[in-house]
């Protein structure tokens, strides 16, 4: 009797989770199927009608998208913004993280507490002053400008994460390396970076996704020639409804890279997001 009830309960749990799973998949499936339908079909009925008549589906929208200079340019801009940002954040934060963990310099403690405090500073507060600053420096509307802003606002978390990770290294290991006559630079590149690989990987993935998916920063700091995919697509949202054959494949293009990264590096991804959630 008890077993029957437990079996029934388990069946209910499974059914509930299946429903939740469907609710989660459906919007995404809707986007994907919409991206494969012509504007005429979309005007006639919802994407689910394509399930009954798969003849509607084709990759025409995607080939049109690849011929669309604005979109391809924006795609490359996204790469040109997110890859250098990731490299810079990881590099600069690793240097600083190592210094905060193992080197001695004046105001080390208060400066690190400042970094911790900066963790939650909202990006919004920097927009206006940095826009003015970049205007004077000629960086406004350029890719380096967008990158610099992202690097600065990525640093507190990155320094925090790496400093804490490096601080866990056994002291003897570093002292042995110093005894062997290694310079700090050598110790950093040969010892600290390899040991820190797991944390660096999580950080890099988190940072890459953060910047790849950003819209707000680029909305302000990029102009039409340096704007990433998110901003390019956002500018077309006003005509929503008439241009789903552009928006849907565009959105899919923009999300497929992070989703691939997600499935390829699940563990690092989850760790990175978990650690980064303190932001």
């Amino acid at each position, binding site marked *: 009797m008890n077993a029957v009830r437990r079996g029934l309960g388990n069946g209910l749990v499974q059914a509930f989770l299946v429903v939740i799973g469907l609710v989660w998949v459906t919007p995404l499936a809707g986007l994907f199927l919409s991206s494969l339908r012509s504007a005429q079909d979309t005007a006639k009925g919802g994407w689910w009608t394509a399930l009954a008549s798969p003849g509607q589906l084709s990759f025409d929208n995607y080939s049109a998208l690849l011929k669309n200079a604005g979109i391809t340019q924006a795609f490359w801009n996204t790469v040109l913004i997110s890859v250098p940002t990731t490299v810079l954040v990881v590099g600069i934060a690793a240097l600083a993280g190592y210094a905060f963990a193992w080197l001695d310099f004046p105001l080390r403690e208060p400066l690190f507490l400042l970094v911790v405090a900066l963790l939650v500073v909202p990006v919004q507060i920097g927009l206006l002053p940095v826009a003015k600053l970049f205007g004077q420096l000629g960086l406004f509307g350029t890719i380096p400008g967008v990158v610099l802003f992202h690097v600065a606002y990525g640093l507190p978390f990155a320094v925090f994460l790496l400093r804490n990770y490096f601080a866990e290294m056994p002291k003897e290991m570093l002292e042995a390396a110093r005894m062997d006559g290694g310079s700090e630079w050598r110790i950093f590149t040969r010892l600290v970076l390899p040991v820190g690989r797991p944390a660096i990987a999580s950080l890099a993935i988190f940072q890459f996704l953060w910047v790849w998916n950003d819209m707000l920063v680029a909305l302000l700091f990029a102009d039409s020639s340096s704007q990433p995919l998110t901003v390019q697509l956002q500018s077309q949202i006003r005509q929503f409804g008439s241009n789903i054959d552009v928006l849907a494949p565009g959105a899919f293009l923009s*999300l497929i890279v992070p989703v691939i990264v997600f499935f390829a590096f699940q563990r690092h*991804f989850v760790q990175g997001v978990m650690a980064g959630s303190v932001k």
Partner: protein
Amino acid sequence: MTATTLVSKEAAPRAAGAARGRRSRRRARTVALLFVFPALLLLGALVVYPVLFSVGRSFFDASGTRFVGGGNYAEMFRDPATLKAIRNTTIWVVVAPALLTGLGLILAVLVEKVRWATAFKLLLFMPMAVSFLAAGIIFRLAYDEDPDKGVLDAAVVSVHDAFEGTSSYPTARGREGLLDQGRDGSYLSHAAVSPGDSVTLPLVGVLPGDLPRDASPARPAARRGAGAGEVRGVVYLDFTPGGGGKQGRVDPEESGLPGMKVEALRDGRTVASTTSSSDGSFRFTGLHQGSYTVKLPASNFAPPYQGVSWLGPTLVTPAIIGAYLWIWTGFAMVLIGAGLSSLPRDALEAARMDGANEWQIFRRITVPLLAPVLTVVFVTLVINVMKVFDLVYVIAPGPVQEDATVLATQMWLVSFGGGNNQGLGSALGVLLLVLVIPAMVFNVRRFRRSQR
């Protein structure tokens, strides 16, 4: 590299003089400063300085020339648009983190009971990889008001129609003079009807597309007489295609109206109801003697149910919160799940041994033990929710933007999006910062404690 020589010297035999030791220590400091310099420069110039600048700027007017003291902050609570933003952000903060933590907790507990837990977690976590923009487009599609386009309204309409039924003839009207119109939009037979009578109910104004394909001419049925104790009749379209018919008469080519709900009323109360068949005929049997009225209820003529206006002014914020749940539930579930797996197994086992049921275990043991994790998840979500921008900016359609506005979007609109009031914009930015200061203090405290 000077640093290289310096450190190797330091490692050299202690015979080196004290002066040299001091110099090398100073050099070691220089190296350390070189290591932190890039980070400190960027943080100082692009984070710390802007914070100070914004705080200062928030005390000046739109053009930045006149000092207004707390004027912008007072303005914030006077201006209806920013007030709306404050109100909406409050709704977000009150609703979203609580819902997410609850949902995450339930799913984290339930998912452990199935074998495909990993696949489920991956699926729910995946939206975390998707940009708010893409998620915004996904939900603009899903929330489309037209049930022929938006999947959500398609579902709502089909559920609604399954329970309420569809009205078949939204444009139909009764032939004037032959049918009376009820106050609620229904139509009633003009003359009283008694058992043994047959009635004809003429309607006009049915769109050709609304006429079902199986509709057949009403004339044969109209000629059939009614038996004792029954009322017969036809509902028909009193219109002969091509002209030539007579008003109020069932002409040979005139079609019956199938699927029409028909009610028999006695003293204003419905005593029988039926639905017309393909030739528009209907029949009430077993009626007692007396005088009846035949009624076509208003539901026959109701405009088709159009679903819910998700992105209209009233529902837009809940709708966007729904999209936010889609993105963040996986996060809450995985984080709580991690806490769950570190719970002491024996406490749960002991409770089970003592005969506690699953609900009691959940209420009395799991939730209290998980409290620290739940707090972390909740606080994290509060911080994130306060800064929500992209999703609102993308999902709320232009005209509804001001109904959906939150602090972050309002700050953007005021500073850059036409408002062009950088004084007020800075004040809103500072408000956002002030709101996260508790989290800032929490982080610093937690860090200092961990260092001891």
